[in-house]
């Protein structure tokens, strides 16, 4: 569980971020942001979905305060993730945790939280985060500079990368573990219902689906335990 192990585990995130960061840089350019403005957003915010949404809102002239508020709503799901992650990480100095907390995204969280062992080392988390963050920032800048020079078919195919990574993380834990399979299934199901009904925005949908599934399955198993 060294820093290098972390880098290795984070490599698939770095690959997954490549097309998304590149596209973000590209879109930021067409939205009218300078390279510094685009890259600074990736450096200081480091939240893909929120950044993409902010571009849409900037281009439609939405009040900056609303954009900040929307960013909060989209990212509030990380509250759940870091609360969950806290149970898995090795106890460490508060300032160290305050630093790596900045690097917790959907992707780095998924890689850390699906580790088999508990007490994940801080250095390992640092490795996962450093390579992911590096990829995100560098490829944002590169996307702004080079524009759409990658062949179109490759750009399009790469849009599957992050989801493929999520699948790659989920499936091994699902095998032979009915609870994990049920959790993922309910998460997907509740999110689908919210998505297709248009009831909630994406940030809230993911939050509600995650909590709903996690609580539902926990109650289901608690009940089963009492009966048996």
């Amino acid at each position, binding site marked *: 569980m060294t820093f290098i192990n972390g880098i290795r585990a984070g490599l698939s995130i770095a690959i997954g971020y490549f097309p998304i960061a590149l596209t973000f840089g590209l879109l930021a350019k067409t939205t009218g942001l300078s390279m510094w403005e685009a890259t600074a957003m990736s450096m200081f915010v480091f939240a893909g979905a929120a950044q993409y949404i902010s571009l849409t809102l900037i281009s439609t002239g939405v009040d900056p305060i609303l*954009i*900040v508020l929307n960013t909060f709503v989209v990212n509030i799901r*990380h509250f759940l993730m870091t609360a*969950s992650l806290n149970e898995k990480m090795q106890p460490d100095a508060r300032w160290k945790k305050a630093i790596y907390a900045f690097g917790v995204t959907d992707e780095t969280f998924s890689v850390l939280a699906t580790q088999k062992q508990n007490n994940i080392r801080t250095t390992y988390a640092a490795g996962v985060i450093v390579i992911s963050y590096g990829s995100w920032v560098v490829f944002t800048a590169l996307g702004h500079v080079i524009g759409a020079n990658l062949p179109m078919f490759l750009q399009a195919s790469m849009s*599957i990368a992050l989801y493929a990574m999520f699948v790659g993380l989920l499936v091994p834990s699902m095998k032979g573990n009915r609870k994990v399979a049920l*959790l993922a299934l309910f998460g997907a*199901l509740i999110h689908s219902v919210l998505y297709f009904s248009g009831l909630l925005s994406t940030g809230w949908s993911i939050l509600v*689906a995650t909590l709903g*599934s996690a609580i539902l399955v926990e109650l289901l198993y608690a009940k089963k335990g009492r009966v048996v």
Partner: protein
Amino acid sequence: METWYWWMLIGMAIVTYIPRAFPLTFLEGRKLPPIVTGVLGNIPYAVLGALIFPAILFVQEGNFLFGLIGAIAAFAIAFAGANVILVVMGSIGVLAVYSLIF
């Protein structure tokens, strides 16, 4: 862009950081009730399900089949026991071949 952009950026950075940092720094060393720990332990798998589906079907706007093929490829490769990088590369490869043919 004018100065409002940088103020907005600072705001975005703060509201993104708080939900990430608060539980990690504040809950440290606190004992949570078992049901809460149970639910928190469930979250990684619940959130993966919610992140993957239905979004994986819409990776290409207006082309449902593209996402579906990518999803099937990713699941198949993962189910065969490949590690994460192979799942990522493999499903990109399958979609690249698909889009070159059609």
